[in-house]
């Protein structure tokens, strides 16, 4: 019996110590950073930056990976809401499906600040800080027409069908290219923002459509996957690849010609803004804008030297 008590006491002390190390030791309370997936470098930067900015503002920050799985995300929210967190910096897995989690947190008085990905109910988060995907893809669409030409065959690889960013990007791109009758989309398929899936999708698309001149991808991971498939098929230089995100490997690929262009989102800006807004809200400032778009910039061979490290160099 004594041994059991000692064991439990030691366990409690260890748990407490582990908790402190994990949380970073801030004094204003704990902030949860819930990220849709940490299997993509862009989201790792978003999550780690949000945690870092929260710590700089005096909070303990804990990072949660939802693994692109709404059930996992719901589990995280259950844990967060029963563990006394002050706020949630949230990158949702699904525009509709994640709403219930955000609403549950708000109902319990834990403010939610969305980063990059949108949820479809404006009141379910205090503020949503979102890339202006639509405008970014208009710029990409215009550059696509400029470089591919007004007569060409192309394919499109979409991200997650349940994510608003997927459609904002696709619609922005199509609002331009659909104006040109000579541009024919031969196929459109989703690859869930995943590099390996995109590689497989691109292989299949090339087999079914030998005459492809360009591929528009909803993010850089998929663009890199498509690029690998093109390389393996011996078609490098014959199919122009367009991505979106501004990840470091994609910016490098624009520099060395494997990608025609990408669009720089600014994950660190979004993360910093979310952390600052959470701090302002927790300090009593409740009159905050519900949505804040963050501009996206075209990255092409002409201006690529200005970009890197998930932002502008200058």
């Amino acid at each position, binding site marked *: 019996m004594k041994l059991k008590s000692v064991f439990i006491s030691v366990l409690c002390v260890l748990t407490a110590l582990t908790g402190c190390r994990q949380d970073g030791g801030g004094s204003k309370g704990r902030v949860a950073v819930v990220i849709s997936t940490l299997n993509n470098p862009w989201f790792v930067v978003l999550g780690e930056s949000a945690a870092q900015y929260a710590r700089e503002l005096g909070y303990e920050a804990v990072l949660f990976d939802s693994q692109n799985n709404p059930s996992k995300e719901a589990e995280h929210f259950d844990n967060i809401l029963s563990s006394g967190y002050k706020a949630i910096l949230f990158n949702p897995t699904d525009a509709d499906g994640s709403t219930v989690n955000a609403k549950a947190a708000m109902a319990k008085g834990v403010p939610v600040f969305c980063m990059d990905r949108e949820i479809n109910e404006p009141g379910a988060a205090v503020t949503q800080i979102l890339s202006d995907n*639509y405008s970014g893809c*208009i710029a990409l669409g215009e550059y696509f027409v400029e470089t591919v030409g007004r007569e060409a065959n192309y394919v499109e690889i979409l991200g997650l069908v349940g994510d*608003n960013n997927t459609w*904002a990007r696709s*619609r*922005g791109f199509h609002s331009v290219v659909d104006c040109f009758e000579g541009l024919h989309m031969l196929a459109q398929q989703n690859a869930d923002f995943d590099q390996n899936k995109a590689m497989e999708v691109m292989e299949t698309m090339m087999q079914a459509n030998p005459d492809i001149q360009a591929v528009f991808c909803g993010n850089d991971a998929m663009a890199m996957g498509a690029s690998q498939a093109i390389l393996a098929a011996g078609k490098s230089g014959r199919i122009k690849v367009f991505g979106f995100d501004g990840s470091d490997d994609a910016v490098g690929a624009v520099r060395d010609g494997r990608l025609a262009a990408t669009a720089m989102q600014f994950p660190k*800006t979004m993360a910093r803004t979310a952390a600052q807004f959470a701090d302002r809200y927790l300090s009593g400032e409740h009159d905050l804008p*519900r949505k804040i778009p963050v*501009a996206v910039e075209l990255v092409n061979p002409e201006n690529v030297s200005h970009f890197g490290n998930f932002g502008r160099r200058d």
Partner: protein
Amino acid sequence: MKKALKIALGAAAAVCAVVFAVRIEPLEEHLAAEMAAKFKPEEVADWHWEHDRARLQDEALGIGELLSGLKADPQAFCDAHARVLGIGSGSFFVVKGTLEGFTSDGEYLSGDCEGSLVRIPVKYIFGNLARDASGWFNLDDFQNTMAFNEISSYLNSRILSDVIPSEIPQGGSCDFCGAVEVKPAEAIPASFRVIPYLLEFHD
């Protein structure tokens, strides 16, 4: 006993029918959903288009005024006169002027206005510039960004149908009022691309 069981089952069924026939939701959520259902972005855009478009001319800056302001202190001028959208966006202005002796290549009207080259697209109009420079819309009023972006597509289509004539007159002059984007951190552009809200051609 059997009769009692039947009554109990019947009562349970009746209770279930009543419970599942009624859905209880917070009043605030219900009103928000009702508002969202009533909100028609195209109707809002139409209303502004009909009521506020002419007013844009009153607030518009002359091209010369824009140029001299940008030359003097671009950031201060943009802070004082431009509209912006969120973080890192360009600065949006409503401008007006007259193109004397313009030319048209089928896609753009081009001409000199107060010493600057002005280019007005007349075939393809993309993007959010007309929406964002107008100041008519607030992102917070929309259910999601997709609905907000649909406003742009709709406004652009109204510009193509209502503002751009099916046949561009040759020669003469053209009064314009439209939207322009400037990036204060960059060099002053050699030409201004103006999305038109109003065009008036003269012989």
